[in-house]
């Protein structure tokens, strides 16, 4: 399994929140993508109707997954491919290892795949003595750095060009302070050799059609296409939610995915995989395997409220739009899927006991829902998780006391109004002796980055009475 550190979120988030160099790097990429996304959506006629249509395509596919998945298996098999079903990450890794062993594979080249990150495939391959090389430039960089990706589509978003240059010097012996072009050329040179020597290519899948058994792989660098055509064996890893019913459903998806992800109207490479090399073809793999992964997705499917999280295209737009993500980055989340969508699917895939904090780490600003190509109502889903977590995982006693105490105070107008002079006195005292804020954790927390507000000399309730009794000099 991949290293999952969702429980460490609070400490990791607090540390990242103080890392201003990280903020600059996250802003540079996220805001650029967000701005480009806004421009291409503004130029797309009927953009909202297209989002509705894409959502309807996914909703239909998810609602009929039970019939579409066997259909996909039939079609993919008829096309000459081999389908494998994996209940969890360990099963998926075992399947890939078995395929590699049977084909005598020692070297695997990988196209970008978040499912592969989710199941920790690289570690499994390496433990079996098989070299796995990421070929997407960003993924290659984080693999060299020994880190997981920190963004769904921009894996090295947390690294600057200088960071990458230093990494290439340390790990590859490239000259110091190389230009972006030189760094890319170095990666390209090294990766070409890996492509030539690899026995197996592993890629993800962006969409699959049950109608024809066609897999769609979307990418920008051509590395994905090389990984699925050059080696003898191609293994495609796919979460079961990536299915659509018909080939024509690809169109609305391909329209929205690149626009949402990078602000491109079309990615550079869209590969349609329809099976292994045929007799009359001169290239392509001898064998194509499709690994269909559940790993908790059927739990989401069985959950009428959370089910829409399965519509996700993994475009990463919600990460770019999220004020929290832009200040802490993906590593703080401790899971392959970060940002708003990560906070929604992690509790389902991992169980809420392992993810007690992520759904609370949101201001519920709704920017994620605004940019989601399939309009997943992420704020509502986060609220639903909060209610479930509050019911199942005991909160700290101080928090329970505050919420329950406030419920009883606010229940009674008399108690509520009696609180006013206490708030006022406390506020005045803390204003005079700021160190006292340390005794009240919420006040101390507020003061870390902000000055405390002062309670008003007279509350509105009191002023209203003044007004009505004619004691307010400003009253008409």
């Amino acid at each position, binding site marked *: 399994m991949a290293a999952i550190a969702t429980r460490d979120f609070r400490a990791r988030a607090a540390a990242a929140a103080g890392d201003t160099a990280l903020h600059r790097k996250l802003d540079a990429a996220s805001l650029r993508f967000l701005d480009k996304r806004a421009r291409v959506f503004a130029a797309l006629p009927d953009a909202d109707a297209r989002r509705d249509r894409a959502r309807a395509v996914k909703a239909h596919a998810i609602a009929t997954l039970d019939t579409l998945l066997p259909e996909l298996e039939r079609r993919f098999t008829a096309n000459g491919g081999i389908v494998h079903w994996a209940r969890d990450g360990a099963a998926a890794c075992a399947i890939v290892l078995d395929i590699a062993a049977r084909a005598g594979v020692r070297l695997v080249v990988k196209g970008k795949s978040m499912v592969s990150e989710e199941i920790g495939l690289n570690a499994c391959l390496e433990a079996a003595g098989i070299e796995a090389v990421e070929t997407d430039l960003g993924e290659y960089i984080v693999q060299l750095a020994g880190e997981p990706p920190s963004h769904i589509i921009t894996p090295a978003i947390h690294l600057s060009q200088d960071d990458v240059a230093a990494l290439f010097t340390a790990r590859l012996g490239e000259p110091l302070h190389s230009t972006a072009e030189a760094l890319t050329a170095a990666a390209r040179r090294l990766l070409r050799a890996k492509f030539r020597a690899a026995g197996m290519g592993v890629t993800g899948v962006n969409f699959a059609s049950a109608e024809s058994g066609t897999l769609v792989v979307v990418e920008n660098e051509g590395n994905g296409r090389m990984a699925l055509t050059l080696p003898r064996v191609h293994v495609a890893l796919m979460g079961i939610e990536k299915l659509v019913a018909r080939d024509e459903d690809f169109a609305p998806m391909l329209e929205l995915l690149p626009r949402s992800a990078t602000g491109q109207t079309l990615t550079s490479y869209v590969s349609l995989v329809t099976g292994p090399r045929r007799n009359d073809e001169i290239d392509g793999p001898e064998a194509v395997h499709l690994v269909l992964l559940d790993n908790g997705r059927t739990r989401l499917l069985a959950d009428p409220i959370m089910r829409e999280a399965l519509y996700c295209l993994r475009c990463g737009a919600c990460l770019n739009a999220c004020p929290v993500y*832009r200040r802490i980055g993906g590593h703080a989340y401790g899971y392959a899927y970060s940002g708003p969508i990560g906070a929604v699917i992690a509790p389902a895939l991992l169980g809420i006991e392992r993810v007690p904090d992520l759904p609370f780490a949101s*201001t519920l600003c709704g*920017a994620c829902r605004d940019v989601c190509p399939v309009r997943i109502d992420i704020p509502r889903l986060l609220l639903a998780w909060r*209610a479930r977590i509050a019911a199942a995982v005991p909160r700290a006693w101080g928090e329970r006391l505050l919420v329950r105490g406030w*419920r009883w105070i606010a229940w009674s107008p008399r108690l509520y109004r009696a609180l006013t002079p206490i708030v006022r006195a406390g506020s005045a005292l803390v204003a005079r002796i700021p160190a006292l804020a340390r005794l009240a954790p919420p006040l101390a927390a507020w003061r870390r980055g*902000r000055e405390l507000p002062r309670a008003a000399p007279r509350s509105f309730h009191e002023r209203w009475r003044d007004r009505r009794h004619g004691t307010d000099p400003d009253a008409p």
Partner: protein
Amino acid sequence: MEVQLLVTCLADQLAPEVGEATVDLLERLGHRVRFPEAQTCCGQPAFNDGFSAEAAALAARTVEIFSAPAPVVVPSGSCATMIRHFYPGLLERGPHGPAARALAARTFELSEFLVRVLGRTDVGAGWSGRVTYHDSCHLLRELGVRDEPRRLLAGVAGVELVEMAYPEHCCGFGGAFAVKFPEVSSAILDPKVESIIATGADAVVANDTGCLLQLAGGLRRRGSTIRTLHLAEILASQASR
């Protein structure tokens, strides 16, 4: 017409001038303001923290307190959202369900009430200076109110409105989020404060006391003298008329 004011607990305790300005403004426009004095808190803090039962109890109380048929005006996009979007679901299975739906239908945030219900964009206000407007998240994305506050500001004599970079980006308040994740909340606030300062405005205007507390806290921590004002305070003012 008669309107009911839901002042919000934050404004009541920390920014009562917001409530006074709302009353002054509505009365100046010829409306009669009722302030049900039993009102306290709408229950949003409990709701956002996952405490559904506690939130439902306060929601039911609020539904009872605002049972009169007059429209309810709220100088907060966030509390208006709580009533409009979340009360009906929270109370649907209990005896308050129908009343909650009815209350949701007659509850309005102040700027949307002025522009959409009353059809006013010039409220006869005067305020001299340069202001920048921060979009509060719930007001913008839950209630869909973007232009109304700007049109109201444009109708104020003496006001120059300057847009900040990314006015629609969250300020990082988020209710309990601000103290549960104080480092993250403050880090979100930083670029917001920078973009406010960069406008050279005399005041930053928003329609939510929560956002205004967060913005004021950040501006004051940096020693900035830029004022934080609720839209109601500008609209109630007649300084330069």
